[in-house]
Each structure stands twice: as structure tokens, then as C-alpha cells.
């Protein structure tokens, strides 16, 4: 019985991943110092178009794409070092949304759908998954419908990077089946999108009303069910990777303050009530990092197996809990300064609060893990 199911202990790191990590680290620290992060907080789209173009030019949008569509076919696991590095430097781009959307397409799309969209995404077109009907990431069905004559009815909440997306992949119900359908941004009136005010100001999302959008049978992903399941797991994993990077960054910010702020004639980092929880942050971040690279090792281009599901869910649960802890203590350990907008600690707390819900919070993941591991 049971924890034999946690027995997959694969953790490897390929030369390609190592190269991606190296270049991603220097790219992200170069292009996304804290003042550029801050200058983007109030910008329309939340990212620099130039940086995004550079990433496209570097081939990063094609890392996990099949060669026949212009990608380098290294697998989704190879994006993890990049996404972790983006999280470390709070570098925002539509990379994560697009990668998740392209994974849904790769895993569930027809040849025609893939041939049309994947090469465009490699070249920088933005894709976004539209899943939520309400605040519940755990929902098992949707009230959004695609009628028998292929007309959409319903709205989706908090679609990431929606304002810049060229393609939406929308979860709907069609003739009693759960389907993913492709909706081109051009099919929507401008009024369909309403921009939301997010707790993490480095992120962007809209609610979208799809009422009356007319599609055809060709818009449905033939292998929708698997694509829906796998893209949510991949979404959880990419969020975990980004969160792990952000935890490491939050830790750096805390350590910098603990080694510079003096009270009662001593550096505050010498006080164990600050030192020991900071060590806990490190350990929690380390566990998250271990688990995301384990997940990166066991996911592949085939339908995700049980080991991969376990790995993605564990990574997500650990990584966003770690970030929440680091974000929360990060405010407290900066004292009054921590309560200010100016203090960078807020960036990580806000991110933690946003990230915990992406693709299901820790408790949601554990609920699924319990079924996978304990029955």
C-alpha cells in the first residue's frame, strides 16, 4: 500500500537545463533589476515589450515546443530553470501564460490547430488559458457552454495576460462533455475584457465575457480532457517554479536587512527570533526547489502519469506555502519599514497571496494528493 507511491525519486539536470539556467540567471538579473520591476508596476501590460522580444529571439518561447513547429523540443521540464529565474527577479512577461496555453494545445490539439498556432507562439504570440467561472480553482465543471451550433455563453474570471493575448483556450461544456475551445482574440469585442485590480501588481489579468462568440467544430481541442488535466498540472508546476525563485529573492531581501539594520546596538540578524525563522525560510525554499526539479524530471510530453501528477502537486503545495511564509515574515522583520509601499518586502507578500491560488492552493493540492497517495 500507499507511500510506495511516493517512491519515484528521480532528480536529474541535463546540460541543456544547466545552460538555460545560466543564461536565464544573467538575463533576468540584467533586464529586471528592482527599479525596472517597480517602474512596470503601474504600466499598462506589466512587462517590457523589448524584454519579451528578446526572450522570443533567444528561442525561449520554443523550449518546450516540438521541432516541427520551430521549437527546440527540450520538454516542459527545461523551462523550469528559466521560470525559476524569472521568479527570482520578479521578471514579468506573458511567458508563463503562453507556455501553459501552448502545453494545452500540444497535448490536446489537432494537427491543424497545432500547425496554425504553435509556430506563432514560438514567434511570440501570446496565449492564455481561461478556466475559472468563479473563485474556485478546484471546480470540476464549468457553467460556460458551447452550444450545439457552436456559440459560446459564459464568462471567465482572472485570465492571466488576457489584454495582450492573441489566443484564448477556454474551458466550456459542449453536448455534456468538458471541452477546451480556441478563441482568437480578434473574435472578441473590446468590451468583452474587463481589467482587474490584482493584489500582485507585477501581474495582469482580465475577466472575459464570451457571450455570443461564434465558433466552429474546428475550435474544439479533440483531446480536451487530457489537455485540461495536464495543463492545470503544468500550470501548478510553473507557478511553483516561479514561486520558488521569488522565495529565494524574498530571503535575500530579508538577509540584507538583517545584516544591516542595528537595534539595541546589535545587528538585528543576531537575534534568534529573527535568525531562526529566516533559516526556516531557507529550508522551505530548499524543499520547494528540490520538489520543482524533481517534477521537472518526471514530467514529459506524454500524458502526465501518476508520478508526474504527484510531483506537480507536491511542488505547488510546498512552493507557495514557502513563499507565503517568506512574504509574511519578510514584512514583520522589516518593522515599520516593512509596512511601507517603498519596502520591497511587500512585492513578495503580494506575490505570495496571488500565487497561492494559481492552479489551486496548497490545501487543494493536498486533497488531491491524499487521494493519490492514501487510497
Amino acid at each position, binding site marked *: 500500500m500507499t507511500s510506495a507511491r511516493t517512491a519515484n525519486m528521480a532528480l*536529474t539536470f541535463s546540460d541543456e537545463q*544547466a545552460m538555460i539556467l545560466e543564461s536565464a540567471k544573467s538575463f533576468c538579473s540584467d533586464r529586471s533589476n528592482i527599479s525596472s520591476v517597480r517602474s512596470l508596476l503601474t504600466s499598462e501590460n506589466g512587462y517590457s515589450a523589448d524584454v519579451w522580444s528578446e526572450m522570443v529571439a533567444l528561442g525561449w518561447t520554443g523550449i518546450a515546443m516540438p521541432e516541427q513547429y520551430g521549437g527546440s523540443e527540450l520538454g516542459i521540464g527545461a523551462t523550469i530553470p528559466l521560470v525559476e529565474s524569472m521568479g527570482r527577479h520578479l521578471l514579468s512577461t506573458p511567458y508563463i501564460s503562453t507556455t501553459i496555453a501552448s502545453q494545452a494545445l500540444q497535448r490536446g490539439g489537432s494537427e491543424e490547430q497545432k500547425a496554425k498556432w504553435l509556430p506563432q507562439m514560438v514567434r511570440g504570440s501570446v496565449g492564455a488559458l481561461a478556466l475559472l467561472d468563479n473563485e474556485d480553482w478546484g471546480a470540476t465543471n464549468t457553467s460556460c457552454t458551447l452550444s450545439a451550433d457552436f456559440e459560446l455563453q459564459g464568462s471567465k474570471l482572472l485570465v492571466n495576460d488576457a489584454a495582450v493575448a492573441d489566443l484564448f483556450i477556454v474551458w466550456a461544456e459542449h453536448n455534456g462533455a468538458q471541452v477546451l475551445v480556441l478563441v482568437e482574440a480578434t473574435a472578441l469585442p473590446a468590451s468583452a475584457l474587463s481589467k482587474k485590480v490584482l493584489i500582485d501588481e507585477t501581474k495582469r489579468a482580465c475577466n472575459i465575457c464570451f457571450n455570443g462568440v461564434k465558433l466552429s467544430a474546428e475550435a474544439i481541442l479533440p483531446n480536451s480532457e487530457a489537455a485540461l488535466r495536464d495543463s492545470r498540472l503544468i500550470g501548478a508546476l510553473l507557478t511553483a517554479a516561479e514561486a520558488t525563485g521569488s522565495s529565494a529573492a524574498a*530571503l535575500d531581501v530579508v538577509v540584507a536587512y538583517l545584516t544591516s539594520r542595528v537595534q539595541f546596538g546589535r545587528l538585528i540578524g*543576531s537575534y534568534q527570533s529573527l535568525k*531562526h525563522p529566516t533559516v526556516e525560510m531557507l529550508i522551505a525554499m*530548499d524543499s*520547494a526547489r*528540490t*520538489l520543482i526539479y524533481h517534477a521537472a524530471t518526471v514530467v514529459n510530453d506524454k500524458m502526465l502519469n501518476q508520478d508526474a501528477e504527484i510531483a506537480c502537486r507536491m511542488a505547488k503545495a510546498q512552493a507557495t506555502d514557502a513563499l507565503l511564509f517568506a512574504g509574511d515574515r519578510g514584512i514583520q522583520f522589516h518593522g515599520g519599514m516593512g509596512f511601507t509601499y517603498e519596502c520591497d518586502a511587500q512585492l513578495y507578500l503580494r506575490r505570495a497571496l496571488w500565487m497561492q491560488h494559481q492552479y489551486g492552493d496548497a490545501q487543494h493540492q493536498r486533497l488531491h494528493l491524499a487521494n493519490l497517495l492514501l487510497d
Partner: protein
Amino acid sequence: MTINTQSIKANQAPELKEFRTEVAAWLAHNRPADPGFLLPQTFMEVGSEQVLDFLREWQHKVWSSGYLGMAWPEKYGGRGMQPVFQSIADQEMKRLRVPICFNVIGLGWAGPLIMDIGSEYEKDKYLKGILNAEDIWCQGFSEPNHGSDLGSIQTRAQRDGDDYVVNGSKIWTTMGNYAKYMILLARTDVQVERRYNGLSFFLAPMHAEGVTTTPIKKLTGEYGFTETFFTEARIPATSLMGEEGQGWHIAMKTLQYERGAEAGAAGGISILSIVMNDLLKMAQDVEREGQPLLKDPVTRDNLVKFLIEEKALYLAEKRIGIPALCADYPNSLPLSGKLRGTEFFRRMRQYALTLQGAQSSLYVGDDDTLEGGFWQRAYMNNFSTTIGGGTSQVQANIIGEHVLGLPKD
């Protein structure tokens, strides 16, 4: 604890597979029958002659059959083989839950230390006896007034002709009453400015005049360690390791072995591995309202939290072998291993007792305990790992200061 990445890859090789099968078969065939008394879960619970004799015989048998000290040189009683063979033997001992190889202070700490920095004389004299369990070793670091603050210990060793004369007392000496040798940290110089510089390290005989031990009863009610008194005790000057004044440096090196941060141990298992599988099995067996606990949603959530933690713990040993994934804090995983592991097991075992309901308020000796009080012992004895070898709080200081660069207290 530390893992050799080469050995992981090599693990797939056919001769290693074959070897694994061989050890497993040997262990299954030779594992001793249930002796009818409680066997220790760790080497810190050797509380009677009966247990001592049993474990001594077992370790001797494991060694003489070639499954202990496999990577140590042949001339010191080893087999001069690749460390991977010993790792495999250890994994099988762990998996099959055979008794522990109890002479741990020799096998895991003093032995590798002597191998690393000992003289030829010391290697010849000590190493074989460690392996074959003839010479039991103990450790004399802690004192009644100085535990975590090891640098301040007061036990004196004064040179007198060919001897050192030792005065003072050590405490929490695991197997002090059974040991033939002690790794002893004592003060040879009280004048020096930096107190650390006055310390020296000895491979000291315990069967010397003026050395006495008094067993101390542990919280579990068992025995396992002693207070050790030195009253004008004479030990030969040849038992000094290195030179006078090098004691602190050598003691710190020893602690690296003890905390599992450095490889070189002779092998064998020192602690019965009690893992999540055991807890899950218990949660399956224990019922509430006609349902296994394993069906209770709150219990399930807690169990999954532990499973995530356990998985990250084991996987960390793989990540240590991938420097690119440890670049920002390269020492983090090795230095935090003891803290992560021992604290996880403490909480997990405590939870096992919580889950048992009123049954866990019974204790060893009562017929109605679950598995003879296995979890009561497991939880309480686990404190030996969160206290011994540097407490968890001290570990957190070390990590904070040496990994994160935070200032000293």
C-alpha cells in the same frame, strides 16, 4: 547520509544489482531471531549487558561476512572496495530492518577521523577493533556545565612524563560503561587567550585507573549513557591525537562526521529507520467509528504534509549532487540535513502518538500498547537526535551564520 553521485549512476550496473541480491539474501538468512527482549531503535539505547552482547555478536557477524567496513583498507580490517558496495549493503540493512551496527562512535565518527588524520600507529591500533566490535568507543565531549558551548569545557589533561593526568567529568557519554576507548576533548592549556586553543583531543583508554562511569536513566526509563568521572586518571601520552592545542579543530571535524555532513563512515545502520510507510500502516490499522483513520480528512491532510516533507528530504540528497541547483547557497543542504531530518522525524513520531488516541497513554510493559510501545519509544528516543550532536537550535544558528551570513548572537 552524504551521497555519492557517482555511486548513484553506478547503482544501475549489473554487478551492483547482483551484489544487492547477494546482501539481501545473506541478511534474510542470517538475521537473528527475536531475542525476546526489546532491541534498541538507536545506538544510544544500549542499556544492558544482554543487549550489548547481542549487538556485539551481530556486528561481528556482519563484519566477518564482509558487509561492514567494505571501503576501508584491507590492512585495517576492511575490504578495500568502492564505497558504493557499502552503500548498497546499508540500504539493504535499512530496508530489511536487521539490527543496528551499534559501535557507531567508532564506525562513523572516530574511525573515519583516524583514517583521515590518524598516524599509522593509530590506524593499526584502533581501526580493526572498531569494525569487529571488540573495541567499543564512546565520546567525551559534553560536560555537566558545558554542552552546546563545547569550547568552554573544563576537564583538564596535564602532561606528566609519559602520561597525561586527567581530572574532571564528562556527561551523556553514550555507552560510557561499555567502551574501551573514548574520543576525549580536554583542556591542556588554561593560559591561552583564545579558549579554543587550549583544547586537545585524545583517543583515551577507558579502562584506566581513575576513570569511573555512572549510568544515567533516560526519559524512556532505559539506560544508554553515563556520567564519566576522571579523578587523577592516567592515560598514556601516546593517546594524544595530533598535537596539543589542535583539539577544537579535530572535534569540529568529528562533528562533521557525526552530523552526516562528511563521508567516510565504515557503514552499517546506526538507527532503525522509521518512515512514513510505518505511520501510514498504523493509520490504516487504527480505526475510529469503524473506519480506518486513513479515511479521516483531517488526518489525511496531515499525513500528506508529512509525505511532502519526507519526499523533499530524500530528494535533497540527490540535489546535493547537482551543484548548478545549489549555486546560491552551496552549503545549505549539507549543513541543514541534520536539522531537517531529525525535526521531521520528531514531529512525525509525535503525530503517530496523537493518532493512537488513549492507547498512546500506555507505556512499554503494558500488554495493551500498540506494537509494544514502538512509537512511544520512537518519539522519545528521537530527542537524542535533536539534542545530541549539536541541538536543533544550535544547528539553526550554524545555518543562519554559515549559510546565510547572519551575524553571531
